[in-house]
């Protein structure tokens, strides 16, 4: 157990490049990426809407009390990386989408709970948060691209939402959906991809104690680029399972086809449990780059969360559990 005098995310200024400097450097490098033939002007004009700055009424709730049960074997990743190194294809296919994501309006934000439930309903994010047991947890986050973060997420266990939703016993899966609004998310204009983003879990997975619905991180409301105002964290699965900016939970007896599965089912499957022994078709998953320290560390089965989740898959076999 770690004994902390200061909250883990409060990294002393001197220890890290300031956020502003870091972002300027990232911008500089974009000029290099744009080639002579492919001047960035061709890209159809960077859509860089700035923060609409609607007040976030949940801000005063933070920070949440940390649940000491979930600890880390490594330092918390500097927040600037988690805030500016994002996969959020709705806003662009590179990692540098933080500015573009500011166009997303996050209030009002209504979540629909429907399908095989006792009584379908919709609920606003702030009302939902009032009903949920809010806490903070430290989780590892393992991207399928073989890098990882360690993040203090704020939110509530998905099991609490399940209790509120009251799925029928015939329901076997919960399908989650990201917002769909090509006007604010230019990537969604690319109709040849199966928007909106969809992910799914079995009911047992959704009820697992690790499965966490995230409303914030680093003691503050979730930044838009990280999936505000509500995203998933399933730390034993590859990052793409942890769907962002959720607007719908639909309970069903049919296994949902997730976004990446629809695109490339041989590379990204439904289960996507972390396993160092099962490579992605294009690269090994045996180790990962720890963002921030830039160390290459061995990847663990179920990302090190086997004691919580391995029993979910007892009796199931095959590599498809792991991609």
């Amino acid at each position, binding site marked *: 157990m770690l004994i902390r005098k200061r909250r883990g995310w409060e990294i002393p200024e001197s220890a890290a490049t300031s956020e502003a400097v870091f972002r300027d450097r990232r911008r500089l490098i974009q000029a290099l*990426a744009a080639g002579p033939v*492919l001047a960035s002007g061709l890209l159809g004009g960077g859509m860089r809407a700035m923060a609409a700055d609607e007040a976030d009424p949940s801000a005063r709730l933070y920070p949440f009390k940390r649940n000491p049960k979930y600890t880390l074997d490594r330092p918390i990743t500097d927040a600037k990386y988690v805030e500016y190194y994002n996969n959020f294809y709705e806003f662009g296919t590179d990692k540098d989408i933080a500015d573009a994501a500011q166009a997303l309006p996050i209030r009002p934000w209504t979540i629909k709970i429907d399908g095989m439930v006792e009584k379908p309903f919709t609920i606003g994010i702030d009302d939902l948060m009032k009903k949920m047991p809010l806490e903070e947890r430290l989780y590892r986050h393992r991207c399928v691209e073989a890098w990882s973060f360690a993040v203090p997420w704020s939110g509530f266990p998905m099991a609490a939402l399940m209790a509120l939703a009251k799925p029928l016993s015939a329901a076997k899966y919960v399908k989650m959906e990201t917002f769909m609004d090509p006007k604010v998310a230019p990537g969604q204009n690319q109709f*040849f991809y199966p928007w909106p983003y969809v992910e799914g879990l079995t009911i047992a997975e959704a009820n697992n104690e690790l499965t966490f619905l995230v409303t914030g991180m680093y003691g503050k409301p979730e930044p838009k680029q990280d999936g505000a105002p509500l995203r998933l964290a399933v730390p034993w699965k590859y990052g793409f399972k942890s769907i962002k900016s959720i607007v719908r939970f639909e309970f069903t007896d049919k296994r949902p086809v997730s976004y990446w599965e629809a695109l490339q089912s041989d590379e990204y499957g439904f289960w996507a449990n972390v396993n160092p022994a099962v490579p992605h078709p294009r690269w090994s998953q045996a180790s990962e780059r720890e963002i921030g320290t830039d160390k290459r560390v061995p990847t663990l089965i179920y990302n090190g969360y086997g004691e919580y989740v391995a029993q979910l898959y007892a009796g199931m076999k095959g590599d498809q559990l792991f991609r």
Partner: protein
Amino acid sequence: MYPWYDYQRRLSPLKLAVFIALFVPGLWTAAAFAIGALEPRPLTAAIHHIGLWTIRFIIIALAITPLKAILSWPRLILVRRMVGVAACAYVLIHFSLYVTDEAFNLATVAHEILVRIYLTIGFTALVGLCVLAATSTDGMVRRLGRRWQQLHRLVYPIALLALIHYFMQSKLDVWEPTIFFGIYGWLMGYRLLAARFAVRGWLPLYWVAALGPVAAALTALGEAAYFHLAFHAPLLRVVAADFSLQTGVRPAVVVLALGLAVALAGAVRAVTMPAPKGRTRFARLPASQPPA
């Protein structure tokens, strides 16, 4: 002989400028690396930047022969070898960075090259580029004679392998590799047409003008077929997207614009600088010049 001299051993400003320019992306990447601009995954970012410039240099090298004819700019040939050698140098850096990223574990590197097909393909292209670079000294050109030209035609399949490597490693966004495929199609199309219809090395401009739309159409069809096969996107809708800006500037549109720009530049050049009577369109180059 220094790379900035021409065949008469005079300083060539063109060669000097290109020589310096070829270092810029590499030095920029190194500087960005040094100041931390490539964080949080500096090695990965550097692999990507250098890889991109490798493929760009390959394409530029392939574009020199057509451009020198279309623009009636024979001295352009002076820089072709330099660009090709730079492509080889960059891919060696690209590969070294990959080896560094794998913590210099050569067994892992060899294993990955064998089992990841996009790496197998990239490595084949790397070996090919090294062979071409090693045989591009003046001495080797002389020694190999006619066989030099045959050997160096390998650049066409090498470029194709490099493009396939690039395309395969793309996750979802294939915008830029698709454009490069289109440009490659244009460059190969030019050579096919030139072999058939060129007069004294000069392909009539109407062929050049026609090539742009054809390459663009092939790009559009190739892209639609890819999205259809890979993602089940409706073929016609993908093609239709080329006629709107809703999904951004499509690769086919970029290829068309480049093709037309080259034809236009050729036309402007032909008008402003008509070939003097009694002379071929090109200044004769001294005998020591490597075959074009």
